[in-house]
């Protein structure tokens, strides 16, 4: 059976994904793949009755029969130039395959190893960390990814790396809907520090499904700036999962952005294993048309004196739907936890919808946890002020929307990326309110 047509059932869609191309591997990885596939079969697509999925409507995804990527699409630097970050260490993947000729590793000197994962399977470090964090036994998408991924990135930080490391995952333009698997593994050793940008983009035209899994390990006293940009093409589907294990006194600063795709979901799960770990989570989803963007975060404070500061924003226009679910769990031993979470949301149209769900679970007395959520519209006073200065309604609304987003974007410590994201936002907004 090879279903290429649209309008499949949920079951057919899943079956089709299971028919993906089997990637040859040996030894430890083969064992993991086999196990993952077995779990994928059992898990199947998540039910909407599942608490974590009840707001996420995947029905559009189920309609498609996604084909495995069977041929390597040759792209040139010109095809992807708009997404390149000048001066960055760069790995590029096209439809999940490593594209050495588009990558740029000449700046990856002392203090960091940046390579294709497939090239590094013999590395003890890879073997001992890969698959240990991503929940391939609990999550069907992670299981599918673990079985079907062809290649991915391996980032091993052993010193202070000043240049940003960009992991650029490009979907090429294809005739048929394809299933693309992206995989990343980042390990930051003690007292080491780096900035990693996971970037998901698509060339215009066609439907595809990106399934992305990332594992991040921060050893004691390690620091990571982790920026995740989802700016897929408009008819794409994107489901991502990232697990972070944070060691003692580590600092993890994450920004996750969702702009693209017809339907997208990103789950970020952070476990503070070591005491005194600190994290700053910023997030922004900007959706219009009939887009759906879901961001799920979970922070497990499992050790004493952990700190987490989170700000998530959703902006929804036209008939779009944005979802944020942020869970903070303070475990029994996590005395002295300090946690602040805020969810701020901007509804730009009557038909748009935003669901926000902050959840606190505290199993400890000695903690300080604050959270709050607001949903608002464009401020009428600000709008009139801008119009009274000569700006059109549209210009004024865009400016205010951009300003709302800028609070997240501007904090990204990579100026070239900030600039490019600002442009992306303005372009997306050009399509808003139409």
């Amino acid at each position, binding site marked *: 059976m090879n279903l290429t047509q649209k309008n499949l059932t949920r079951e057919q869609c899943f079956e089709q994904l299971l028919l993906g191309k089997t990637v040859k591997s040996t030894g430890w990885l083969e064992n993991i793949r086999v196990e993952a596939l077995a779990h994928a079969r059992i898990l199947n697509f998540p039910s909407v009755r599942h608490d974590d999925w009840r707001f996420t409507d995947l029905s559009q995804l189920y309609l498609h029969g996604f084909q495995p990527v069977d041929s390597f699409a040759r792209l040139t630097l010109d095809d992807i130039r708009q997404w390149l970050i000048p001066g960055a260490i760069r790995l590029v993947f096209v439809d999940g395959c490593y594209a050495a000729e588009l990558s740029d590793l000449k700046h990856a000197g002392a203090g960091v190893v940046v390579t294709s994962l497939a090239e590094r399977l013999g590395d003890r470090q890879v073997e001992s960390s890969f698959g240990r964090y991503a929940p391939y036994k609990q999550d069907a998408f992670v299981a599918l990814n673990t079985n079907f991924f062809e290649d991915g990135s391996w980032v091993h930080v052993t010193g202070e790396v000043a240049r940003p490391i960009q992991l650029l995952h490009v979907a090429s333009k294809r005739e048929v809907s394809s299933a693309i698997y992206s995989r990343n593994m980042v390990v930051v050793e003690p007292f080491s520090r780096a900035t990693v940008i996971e970037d998901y983009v698509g060339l215009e035209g066609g439907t595809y499904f990106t399934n992305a899994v990332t594992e991040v390990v921060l050893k004691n006293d390690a620091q990571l700036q982790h920026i995740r940009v989802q700016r897929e093409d408009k008819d794409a589907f994107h489901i991502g999962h990232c697990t972070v294990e944070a060691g003692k006194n580590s600092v993890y600063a994450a920004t996750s952005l969702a702009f693209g795709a017809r339907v997208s979901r990103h789950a970020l799960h952070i476990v503070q294993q070591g005491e005194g770990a600190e994290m700053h989570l910023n997030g922004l989803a900007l959706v219009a048309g009939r887009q759906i963007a879901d961001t799920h975060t979970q922070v497990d404070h499992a050790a004493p004196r952990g700190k987490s500061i989170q700000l998530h924003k959703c902006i929804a226009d036209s008939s779009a739907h944005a979802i944020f679910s942020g869970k903070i769990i303070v475990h029994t031993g996590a005395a002295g936890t300090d946690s602040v979470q805020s969810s701020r949301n901007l509804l730009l149209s009557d038909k748009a919808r935003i669901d926000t769900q902050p959840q606190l679970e505290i199993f400890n007395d000695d903690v300080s946890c604050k959270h709050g959520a607001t949903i608002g519209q464009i401020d009428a006073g600000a709008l009139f*002020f801008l*119009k009274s*200065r*000569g*700006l059109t*309604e549209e*210009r004024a609304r865009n*400016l205010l929307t951009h*300003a709302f987003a800028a609070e997240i974007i501007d904090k990204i410590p990579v100026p070239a990326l900030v600039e490019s994201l600002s442009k992306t936002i303005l372009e997306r907004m050009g399509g808003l309110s139409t």
Partner: protein
Amino acid sequence: MINKASKVLLEVKNLKAEVGGVEILKGVDLTVRAGEVHAIMGINGSGKSTFSKVLAGHPDYTVTGGQASFEGQDLFSLEPEQRARAGIFLAFQYPVEIPGVSNSALLRLAYNTLQTERGLEELDPLEFDDLIQEKIKVVEMDPSFLGRSVNEGFSGGEKKRNEILQMAVLAPKLAILDETDSGLDIDALRIVAKGVNSLLSSDNAVVMVTHYQRLLNYIVPDYVHVMDGGRIVRTGGKELALELEARGYDWLRAAA
């Protein structure tokens, strides 16, 4: 400066307006010619800000009667941004804060919008910077305010100065200053007044809403109007302000 031969900028006749079903303006008449300085005074709640906002096109207010024209054009057929482009400027009594939009970005956007409207070249950020460095001198503002979000965290007086900076950049034909002097310290009042004076010419005009005679020592009005209960109940020269200062408003109300 009064010159009966100069062009009429604003002509308001029997203007009535309401908010939330309550009539606030009950028949305002006002004519402003190029080159003139007008002051509008009156007790709290008499409708001065409402009048200002109605002229600027605030959506909360519904015009229920009368006419207003600007350089012969029906004001109420224009959107707020069209009025701004035609040359009307309102300095707000309570300037809004706009987090995330830098002062310089807003000024450039607004300036370029007007340039385009007037068929002139837009300025790029570098060219605009030259212009803005000139203009901030008018209000003696520290350049660091340009990089900050519009009015965010500004003190009351700084916000008012910022309004005048916008006026200086946009060079309106008719500036309506709603209590720009309130909340200014003595030095700031002098600076702002000097700034406004330097912007005045025989081609433009200003309408100042104020509670204090002090401002009028610096910006000398050709006309002083008293608003009460949504109407202009008395018009005089600058000596009317002195009289109000000395006697308050009661005698006027009794006479009305």
